[in-house]
């Protein structure tokens, strides 16, 4: 019964949720951290919110805020052991973290319902709530990007050695990125649980990891608009072309390959760089512009 309702949920809600989760992936990549832990944070948030609501009768805002806080704590704690690791090692550790969370959820059957998941969650979060969530996330990201934190993230992503030489604390900013990622995904997971009636452990494994990553890779990894455009395109694409809906994984895979090879900076960042280059040429025709490749785009 619950699944029947979920199948008819408005596409809009799902798009908003995937935008939010894409931002959780975006913020770590922006800081130069190759973390794929978004799926795990979302699982933690979703289960925490669902349990608070179904077993303890918590109000929706309380449950979502608690999920957000728990996600942030999980992110902060995860950043401590990962402080020593970089690139591929970070990727492996975070993929393993996702697997640990999923298998612990499956194991802790009395609390989480095991393989059956949690069903019959009241729908306490509507489209308005999701819009508010996304608006807060976008506002937060915009503020961060325009502040010193955003510049520190840019420096860390482009060259860690230079960033350290400039006095940027790698451990501090990586921890901050993980905490933000955890908080955004925790809240997003909580909203997901309170919006879609039922949750189960497997949905938070590879499928969510890939969806969040694909959105950011497709949209762009520096501009705030990037994850929104990426997540919206990925959500709407299967609706426009029906056959694509059945081939969702295949399409995601092809998009990941083609975009990362031929448009490695994503749609929005590439367009933004072109726009900046074009404007610069128009305004000061005498200036020969170098490669705009690593210019931060706000």
């Amino acid at each position, binding site marked *: 019964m619950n699944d029947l309702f979920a199948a008819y949920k408005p596409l809009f809600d799902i798009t908003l949720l995937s935008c939010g989760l894409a931002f959780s992936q975006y913020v770590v*990549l922006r800081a130069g951290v*190759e973390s794929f832990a978004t799926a795990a944070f979302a699982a933690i948030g979703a289960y925490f919110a669902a349990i608070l609501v179904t077993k303890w009768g918590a109000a929706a805002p309380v449950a979502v805020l608690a999920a957000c806080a728990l996600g942030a704590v999980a992110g902060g704690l995860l950043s401590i*052991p990962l402080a*020593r*690791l*970089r*690139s*591929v*090692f970070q*990727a*492996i*550790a975070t*993929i*393993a*973290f996702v*697997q*640990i969370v999923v*298998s*612990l959820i*499956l*194991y802790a059957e009395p609390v989480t319902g095991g393989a059956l998941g949690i069903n019959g969650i009241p729908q306490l979060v509507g489209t308005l709530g999701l819009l508010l969530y996304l608006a807060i996330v976008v506002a937060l990201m915009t503020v961060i990007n325009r502040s010193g934190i955003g510049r520190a993230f840019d420096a860390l992503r482009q060259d*860690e050695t230079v960033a350290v030489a400039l006095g940027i604390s790698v451990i501090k900013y990586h921890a901050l990125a993980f905490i933000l990622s955890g908080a955004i995904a925790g809240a997003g997971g909580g909203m997901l649980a309170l919006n879609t009636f039922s949750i189960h452990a497997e949905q938070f494994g*590879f499928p969510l990891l*890939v969806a969040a*990553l694909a959105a950011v*890779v497709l949209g762009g990894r520096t501009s705030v608009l990037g994850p929104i455009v990426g997540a919206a395109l990925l959500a709407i694409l299967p609706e426009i072309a029906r056959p694509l809906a059945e*081939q969702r*994984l*295949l399409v*995601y*895979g*092809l*998009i*990941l*390959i083609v975009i*990362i*090879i*031929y448009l*490695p900076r994503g749609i929005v960042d590439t367009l933004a760089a072109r726009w900046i280059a074009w404007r610069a040429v128009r305004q000061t025709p005498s200036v020969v512009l170098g490669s705009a490749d690593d210019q931060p785009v706000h």
Partner: protein
Amino acid sequence: MLVQQLLNGLIVGSVYALFALGFTLVFGVLNILNLAHGAVFMWGAFVGLYAVTVAGLPLPLAFLLGTLAAGILSVLVDLLVFRPMRKRNGDEFGALVASLGANLVLISLAQQVSNARIMSFPFGTFPIVIFEFLGLRVSLLQLTMIGCLIVLVSALLYYVYVMPFGRQVRAVAVSERTAVLLGVNPTAVYVRTFFIAGALAGAAGVIIGLAFNSVQFLMGEPMMLRAFVVIILGGMGSIRGAIVAGLLLGVVQTTVVTYISSQLSDAIIFALLFIALLVRPTGLFRGLRQPARVARS
């Protein structure tokens, strides 16, 4: 009982090692994590199974076919995904994302080919013969698994450490440009590396399909996660490390399943991975690249 479990663990571990060897070899040469390796393994098992069930070929031939097909598939992944990436100077993150995409494509193709069914080899494909000595039970299949590992690993070690290929691989691993100056053709090295890696994965796929008598499109995922543990424990890019760590993982896993909990075994294995990353991220052995690359260059 304990000795029996140790033996079983070593046998399972030998397959883990076989799978992880290709993974670690690609990492050693290209410094990329080929996340499509699990899908190649799965396709090896698929081809082996279809060779028996659809084409009606005898098992040894099916094994050979699965191994070859996986090798070719792995080369295709390199040609279609990693080579354009290298040409356009893609970074490590890009390679990671692209291989994740290739993994998805291969998995969803397999899902459609098999209709997401769990398939198995027909009964009696491999004779069930059980030997007993010193109170230990070993099946003919397990002995064959060990035999395969010994043969394939010896061939690999011979190829990498005795033949000129090993030196070429190490040359390309250290610097592709210098290797070209020294007359090494990097493309040939890449093609051969990916073929060997894929073939080893395919062999492991057919063996795992036979041992657990189940072949399905998601079978690569748990193997990939185990391979992560193996290459981290053994040292990224280290061949000796992959063998030792693979066997070790097999023993740890069977011991955990027997004495603690089968449901928790995954969580415990990945907790082990975390500890390994914390305590000694460079692993037990040195890789093809030295010094071990933990910090970003």
